[in-house]
């Protein structure tokens, strides 16, 4: 197919505005997928994603569309992930497109992510087609929403299709606009190959499969290729497109979106955003915008059953095949035994990995509170990178501690500026400025310690802005702060997995917050348990978990035996989900409790 008949686009939307439903309808209309013979929301491959309504794994589908002008067009629909942890990956999949279909819910109008995604698309010079969805709903306000889009984003909505992705109403108009409004790819087929990697996954038979968009030149089976950032070279063994099943082709031409395999063993070689070129005839410059993604958040993962350590190791190895940004190495905790310190791009990434381990690999995990990497300068002049509070050197050996700072841009509307600023201030934020983008839309810029963001910043931001704020952040470097390690003692024994590194000025408040939280989480036991927070041996907060006084079934007669035994079995199962640390039995949530201690502050 000649380049003029190719259209590469993505669909962007706020969560639940109907992105996946529209994608499904488009697949049906182009007869790519026959009548629901695939599961609902076909582009979200993993159960987990479907359940959470988010898309993490990118995917691309080729469709052929017979347009009203009588011509046949080739559409490449590229799905995008949607969370701040993966903004960079979103931007790379957008960079593989010439246009974007912006779906806005006619009942809800412009939302925070509508804006964030639109600006990301504009950054990548995409042609944007606004689409008003859910017009079949009783409370739809399509005209108001159109005005809102025009006023807030500044997109002309006079021709915006009014659709119902659910019923399929007017979806064809969207396809026509894709043909007429989105430009064809404009690469040069005669130039050396330049292909953008926008996703990759591991296939146990063929190695890593790279999903690419050809910007210049072409790629054929047998070509020797090079990844320009990593320098890795391979010979292409297979290439193809997905419709959504894999269809092998000999050559991917200029403007095409497809995949290739090259017996690549390590996903480390295939980085999202990297440029693939021909090793014999290399391009001079890679495509712009490549960023190496480094883990920013670390936490300890331990099997709650110590015998499952090897299973956890294997599961991590397997996940790693598909996830270049996941890092882990073995570590040992006095309280939790053998486990792994794992690095993640952000909190969502961490959540998803934990859930996949528990669900797909049937592991029962204990996760410690996330930590950032601290730079600890010792009096002997050396520096240690500390990603685990338990590893913090003795206070007397420390000259200074530096922690990572980020520049955070928070987009929000007038009504929530006050609460958002208050939140940033409470998180040790340094106010940099505020830009008014448009009537009612502002970008607040703050410098914040990363450690404050990885605690409960997202949740707090969402609740203080009613979901009407979006956050993007980037690392800007390390700064010296008065940071100390706070230990938590249960029954007068330090539980290493509960230690945290915090700012000295917040120690008292956090210490009492955490101890109170632990008191709520740890069930009463046969004896009284003091819960203490201490800095360098000095106790700064204390509560007691009272001893359990009565736990006995009131009645147990002849007809009750089965039922009462089940109750006891339930108690036994509950106990299994807890970890015995010394003489104290601790539920798994307790190890994350340092996260949610802000709940107590608010009370």
């Amino acid at each position, binding site marked *: 197919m000649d380049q003029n008949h190719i259209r590469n686009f993505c669909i962007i939307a706020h969560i639940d505005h109907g992105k996946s439903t529209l994608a499904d309808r488009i697949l049906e209309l182009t007869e790519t997928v026959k009548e629901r013979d695939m599961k609902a929301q076909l582009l979200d491959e993993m159960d987990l994603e479907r359940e959470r309504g988010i898309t993490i794994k990118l995917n691309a589908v080729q469709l052929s569309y017979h347009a009203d002008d009588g011509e046949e067009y080739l559409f490449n629909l590229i799905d995008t992930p949607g969370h701040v942890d993966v903004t960079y990956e979103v931007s790379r999949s957008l960079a593989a497109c010439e246009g974007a279909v912006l779906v806005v819910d006619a009942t809800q109008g412009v939302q925070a992510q509508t804006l964030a995604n639109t600006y990301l698309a504009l950054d990548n010079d995409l042609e944007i087609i606004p689409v008003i969805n859910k017009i079949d709903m009783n409370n739809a306000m399509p005209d108001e929403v159109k005005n809102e889009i025009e006023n807030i984003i500044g997109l002309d909505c006079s021709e915006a299709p009014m659709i119902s992705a659910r019923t399929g109403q007017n979806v064809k108009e969207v396809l026509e606009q894709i043909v007429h409004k989105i430009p064809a790819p404009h690469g040069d087929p005669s130039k050396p190959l330049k292909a953008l990697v926008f996703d990759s996954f591991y296939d146990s038979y063929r190695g890593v499969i790279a999903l690419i968009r050809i910007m210049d030149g072409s790629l054929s089976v047998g070509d020797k290729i090079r990844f320009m950032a990593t320098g890795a070279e391979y010979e292409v063994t297979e290439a193809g497109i997905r419709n959504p099943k894999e269809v092998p082709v000999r050559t991917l031409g200029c403007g095409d979106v497809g995949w290739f395999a090259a017996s690549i063993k390590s996903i480390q070689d295939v980085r999202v955003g990297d440029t693939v070129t021909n090793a014999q005839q290399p391009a001079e410059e890679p495509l712009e915008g490549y960023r190496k993604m480094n883990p920013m958040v670390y936490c300890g993962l331990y099997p709650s059953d110590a015998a499952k350590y090897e299973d956890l190791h294997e599961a991590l190895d397997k996940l790693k095949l598909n996830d270049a940004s996941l890092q882990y190495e073995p570590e040992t905790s006095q309280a939790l035994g053998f486990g792994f310190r794992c690095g993640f791009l952000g909190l969502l990434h961490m959540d998803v990995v934990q859930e996949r381990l528990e669900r797909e690999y049937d592991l029962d995990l204990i996760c410690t509170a996330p930590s950032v990497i601290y730079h600890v300068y010792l009096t002997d002049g050396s520096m240690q990178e500390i990603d685990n509070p338990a590893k913090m050197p003795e206070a007397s050996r420390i000259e200074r501690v530096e922690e990572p700072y980020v520049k955070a841009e928070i987009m929000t509307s007038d009504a929530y500026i006050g609460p958002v600023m208050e939140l940033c201030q409470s998180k040790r934020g340094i106010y940099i400025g505020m830009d008014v983008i448009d009537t009612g839309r502002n970008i607040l810029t703050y410098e914040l310690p990363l450690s404050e963001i990885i605690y409960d910043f997202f949740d707090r931001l969402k609740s203080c802005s009613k979901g009407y704020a979006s956050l993007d952040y980037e690392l800007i470097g390390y700064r010296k702060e008065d940071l100390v390690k706070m230990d938590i003692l249960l029954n007068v024994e330090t539980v290493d997995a509960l230690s945290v590194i915090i700012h000295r000025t917040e120690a008292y408040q956090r210490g009492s917050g955490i101890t109170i939280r632990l008191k709520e989480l740890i069930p*009463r036991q*046969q004896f009284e348990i003091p819960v203490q927070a201490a800095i360098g041996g000095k106790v700064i907060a204390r509560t007691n978990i*009272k001893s*359990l*006084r*009565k*736990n*006995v*079934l*009131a*009645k*147990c*007669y*002849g*007809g009750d*035996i*089965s039922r*009462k*035994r089940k*109750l*006891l*079995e339930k*108690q*036994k199962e509950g*106990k299994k989900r807890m970890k015995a640390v010394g003489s104290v039995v601790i539920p798994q949530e307790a190890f994350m409790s340092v996260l949610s201690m802000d709940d107590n502050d608010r009370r």
Partner: protein
Amino acid sequence: MTAARNPSLYVHVPFCASVCFYCDFFRQVYQKETADAWLDALEYELLHTEINDGLETIYIGGGTPSSLSESQLDRLLSLLDPYKIAISEYTVEVNPETLTQDKIDTLLMHGVNRVSIGLQSHDAALLKMMNRHHSFEDVSRLVNQFFACGLSNISLDLMYSLPNQTMESLQRSTELAVSLNPAHLSLYSLTIEENSVFGKQGVRPLDEDTEADMYEWICSYLSKHGYDHYEISNFARDGKESVHNTRIWEYEDFYGFGCGASGKDEKGRYDHPGTLKQYLKDPGARSYIYLTKEERMYESVMMGLRLSRGISRSRFEKRYGNDLTDVYPETIHSLCKEGMLILTEDRLSCSTHGFELLNNVLVRFMEEAEL
């Protein structure tokens, strides 16, 4: 051969005049025709079951057995007449709303020598909240009626840890109950059963500390008034322990008749599955739960430790061929060290502390048994 002899027989009467909000037993509101059909089915079940002679105890519970009409009650007791030759204890659960002098006479005529009466509380507001339609005075009158007829082995049920119940209210209820001079008292802390009205209303019992305070007060008050605390929730004077229930806690076999009843024999335990309607259609239907030796040993510990005198090691060994301390060596050792259990030459029993935390104790046994 007397080995497989059941000492006890239980009949479950699935009818009540009204439904108490804490109850999730198998029961429904009394209707004459249904009760007649139920008696037909029970008769069939009794006739088609081989029942050994020499039964020690019969217990008729429910539901509310006294919700049956006088003639129905007479028929029920007549059905059981053939089995009562060697009976030492014959108990019927009754309540003041449904028990008339006629019915009392019927009970006595058939040899019933123990009654269990639901008092629950003296507090009218609490009784109303539980949907109980009687007063303390009603119970008091009933107790005296029995005394007047020469039946003195009376048990009263009380409840504590009820929503809105204060310590003072519980104390008053207990004092008033004791003032009636019953031989036996059962004091149950409120358990919210999922399928009870309370469970569906989302009612919460009192907090653990208040409950424990109440329990400890009850134990000390009743002991001062001559009641022996022989089981978690049961107290008896002058050796008037419930023989029937003691056999159950000693994990002896027993017959269970009527839908909603369970029984136990040498193979395991059995239930009558399904609804009343199904029971009427097929009174002989039973679903068996076959138990391994490990399970039987565990259940005998689970039941036996409810008694303050605990488990007889020699009887355990006679039954299962193992010494208790060989079956659960680690649990018994560590729980004794923690002061939860007391091991003597012949018995294993709970300390006061272990009694109150019996669930924790039993979970430890369960862990060692790997059930």
